């Protein structure tokens, strides 16, 4: 991987693909293309590669649960070692003009932390006085493991604090760097901009943001990843009872979200299994409408889960602060519809996959259509990578909800289509 450098290796191929998004779909598409000796530029808006999935936890019990989180780390490592792939972090597409190729301009914000100097000592992270102003990544990708979050950093707010820059023993931090523009040319484009997580506050009856012991499943993923255990936010104690509520934001026609997010049942069941494997004393309930399949041989997996997890087919109506720090769920029992109130130590909202925040802007720039839910629309139902623009292809959750395995599969398909479009696949003719 090259860090945004413009020089080319002497045996560079004349073909180049621009991949928008550095999550698992973008990484997979880039990797497949590079293996066909096609140069790739990845544009990533954040300071790290790997998208949402790089922060997911391993959900193994004694056995792998096939969530695919480790595949993301493995793919990232392959991309980082691949010289044909150039990565532009903190970058966003400003404009694209199309002639025979796509000429594009990127706006590139600085990394502020010089990767050549940073030793990942973590002093900046530990000393920073503003919560969330210095963030830590999940994998080493040739840049610093730490990044400055301008939105929280006091320096960018009012210029009052430069503690990290002053404290860094390697003088690796320079907060005075400014954004710049980079332009380039690509023969094809793959849109792999991913998704945004449903904002649980948009379903106010679950009290997210009000009740501290109501968290999102993504927060649970991160907690398992960062702390290797589950702790209740209010008192940092291990919960004895946990409730997952499924379909938060998905399959919700009131919100015009008439689609299934396809991943929530899988992650809820796998995390429930992982948690009860570590502590068999934890009682976990999953409240659901319809359990969706995940992975291969789902029937067998579901039966195994039923040994440790209580599945309740009922969507809780209300939720309120119970005794102590508990959260009380009100729901109708499955058997006779009787209303019950049951307290839980921790409630996890299985938030769904929503269209990316920049989809509208990007669709306008690339002259693509969005579907009625706001995901990028495909034109051929037999090949969901296709768009109405020749030479522009879709991969991953930019096109619609999918899990890691499906995102990787669609990325391969998009790479194959792009290579075919560039004439690279007509290798023996």
């Amino acid at each position, binding site marked *: 991987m090259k860090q945004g450098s413009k020089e080319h290796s002497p045996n560079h191929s004349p073909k180049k693909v621009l991949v928008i998004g550095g999550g698992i779909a973008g990484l997979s598409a880039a990797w497949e293309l590079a293996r066909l000796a096609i140069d790739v530029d990845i544009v990533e808006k954040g300071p790290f590669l790997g998208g949402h999935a790089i922060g997911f936890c391993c959900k193994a019990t004694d056995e792998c649960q096939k969530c695919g989180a480790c595949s993301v780390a493995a793919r990232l490592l392959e991309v980082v070692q691949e010289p044909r792939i150039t990565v532009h972090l903190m970058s966003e597409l400003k404009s694209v003009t199309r002639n025979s190729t796509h000429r594009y301009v990127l706006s590139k914000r600085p990394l502020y932390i010089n990767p050549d100097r940073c030793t990942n000592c973590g002093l900046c992270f530990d000393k920073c006085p503003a919560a969330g102003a210095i963030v830590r990544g999940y994998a080493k990708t040739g840049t610093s493991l730490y990044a400055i979050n301008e939105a929280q950093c006091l320096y960018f707010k009012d210029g009052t604090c430069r503690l990290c820059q002053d404290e860094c023993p390697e003088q690796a931090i320079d907060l005075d760097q400014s954004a710049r523009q980079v332009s380039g040319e690509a023969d094809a484009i793959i849109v792999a901009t991913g998704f945004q997580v449903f904002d649980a506050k948009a379903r106010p009856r679950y009290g997210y943001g009000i009740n501290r012991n109501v968290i999102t499943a993504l927060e649970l993923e991160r907690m398992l990843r960062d702390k290797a255990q589950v702790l209740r936010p209010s008192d940092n104690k291990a919960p004895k009872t946990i409730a997952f509520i499924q379909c938060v934001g998905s399959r919700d026609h009131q919100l015009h979200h008439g689609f299934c997010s*396809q991943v929530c049942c899988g992650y809820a069941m796998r995390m429930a299994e992982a948690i009860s494997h570590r502590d068999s004393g934890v009682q976990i309930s999953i409240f659901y409408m319809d359990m969706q399949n995940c992975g291969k041989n*789902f029937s*067998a997996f579901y039966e195994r889960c039923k040994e440790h997890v209580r599945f309740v087919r009922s969507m809780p109506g209300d939720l309120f602060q119970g005794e102590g720090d508990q959260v009380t769920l009100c729901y109708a029992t499955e058997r006779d519809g009787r209303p019950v109130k049951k307290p839980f130590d921790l409630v996890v909202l299985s938030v769904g996959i929503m269209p990316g925040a920049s989809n509208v802007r990007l669709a306008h720039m690339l002259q693509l259509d969005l579907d009625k839910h706001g995901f990028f629309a495909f034109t051929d139902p037999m090949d969901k990578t296709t768009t109405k623009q020749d030479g522009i292809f879709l991969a991953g959750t930019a096109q619609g909800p999918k899990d890691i395995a499906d995102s990787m*599969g669609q990325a*391969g398909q998009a790479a194959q289509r792009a290579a075919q479009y560039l004439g690279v696949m007509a290798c*023996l003719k």
Partner: protein
Amino acid sequence: MPEVASLSGQGAPMEEIPMDTTVLIIGGGWSGIKVAHELIDMGYGVVLAESGTAMGGEPSGHPWASVKKKELTALLDSVKEADGIEILTATTLVSLTGVPGRFQARFEQGGESFERAVGAVVVALETQRVSLAEAYGLRGDENILTQSQLEHVCASGKGEAPLLGGGSKDVLFLVGLQQEASPVAMERAIQSALQVQCTGGLQATILVGNVKLAQHGLETLYKESREKGVLYFKLRETPHIKQNGADVSISFFDNVIHDQVVLRPDVLVVEEAIRPHPQASDVGQALGIDRDGEGFLQPDNVHFLSTRSNREGIYVVGPARLPSSLAQGWKDAQNAVLEVCQLLGTGKRVVPKEKAKIHRGKCTVCLTCFRVCPHGAIYWDNRAVISPTACQGCGICASECPMDAIQLVDFRDDQIEDQILQGTATGVDGPQMIAFCCQNSAFEAAQMARVTGGPLPKGLQIIKVPCAGKVDVDYILTAFKAGVDGVLVLACHKDNCKSQQGNTFAQWRVEDARRMLEESGLETDRVRFATIASNMPLEFVRITREMEDKLNQLGHSPIRKGAAA
């Protein structure tokens, strides 16, 4: 076309080898036809073997009515008429020998047997639909149909379908009550129910376990069907079914109206299970590739995503690896084509001359390596030969070889032993321990643990191995002889080993080592096996610190104490 990058083997001598650019496709269904079409388009030769007498046919995930038959037929015609394809119908694969780029496939057709040379293999067997009527306790009658039979009735037009004609009738579907359904099966049931519902006088009702909607557009279809009047009852248990000839009554407790419901449908439509092709087991055996718990031809292991098998040069697509829709099968087809292109390129490939060496003087031709290789990379040519194209460098053969006759080029025993001896020369007061770490999991976790995980034990030395299956009992014993206090062998979780069995071999070797320690009077707790993933740095810290605590309790190893004295 690109020159294909070499595998690993930094600094190892490389050579260019010829690759056969003809690809064998097994299965003449729509996934196989799609693979053939894409490969022909790129100029590759294709041998397509189909055990049945015809190509194409009804797609296994869809009724004919729902696909664009014209487009499919055009695709099939273009494949049939292409140059560079040989279509073998009524032909079964008997065996596959050789190495990626130079396979020999043996077939049987009408009692005759013959061979073809191919560079790669794509398995594209379709699935079969199996009626679950018997599982529901139903005996055949004219008003009891499988999902496929109903689709045929619907497609044939109402005039020819007296079953659905003649006044008001109730049509009842049973879905996902004997086993979990799939979105593919769910879509078919909903489509049929909609079609029935939109026919005058008919009422469609679906009894279902979980409504499977995890597929693009299915929630919308489900909503549309309810708006059009299709009734759904979601059941948690299989309903009670009584049958007296054509008279069927189905009773269950409904959780919405909280009462017992009895339905007497005029027509009953029973779901079908989607099972592997009847030949899947034979084909898997002939190719030497592993199956999953349901018999599909790809193990349930994320390292094989999307279309890889445990053998290099053999790829598995769509319905051959899991129940798939036509579009999913085609997505896989395109992924497999990408793999083929990366493997065979323009007919040459640069590979390391050797990835593993067999010492001819030491080899006693016991064939252990041949048997244990999870990648089918070792073949027999009057002596065992390790194919550098097929070899994944896991080293399981090297560690299992009873004569120590095999050395990996990148991980030689003497290199690893040097590292073990270095590890005992740290001069740390506390426990000295060595962790053998699989490069795919524990080694990566260790790298991150050093940065973010908090302090690691001072006396810990990490030794990277290509797979935990490479860890020889000798390594463990060498470590103890050199005076370490404890040894950890850290492998991938079960079902997550890139070499399928490497973690199991590692665990067995640790058990062996524990026995040996016991015999020589050392505490067995000084050696431990554990599983971990690459993204678990905290788990790495936990395991190593726990080991440190244990070793602190046990004190220094008697060998270390002896050496100090």
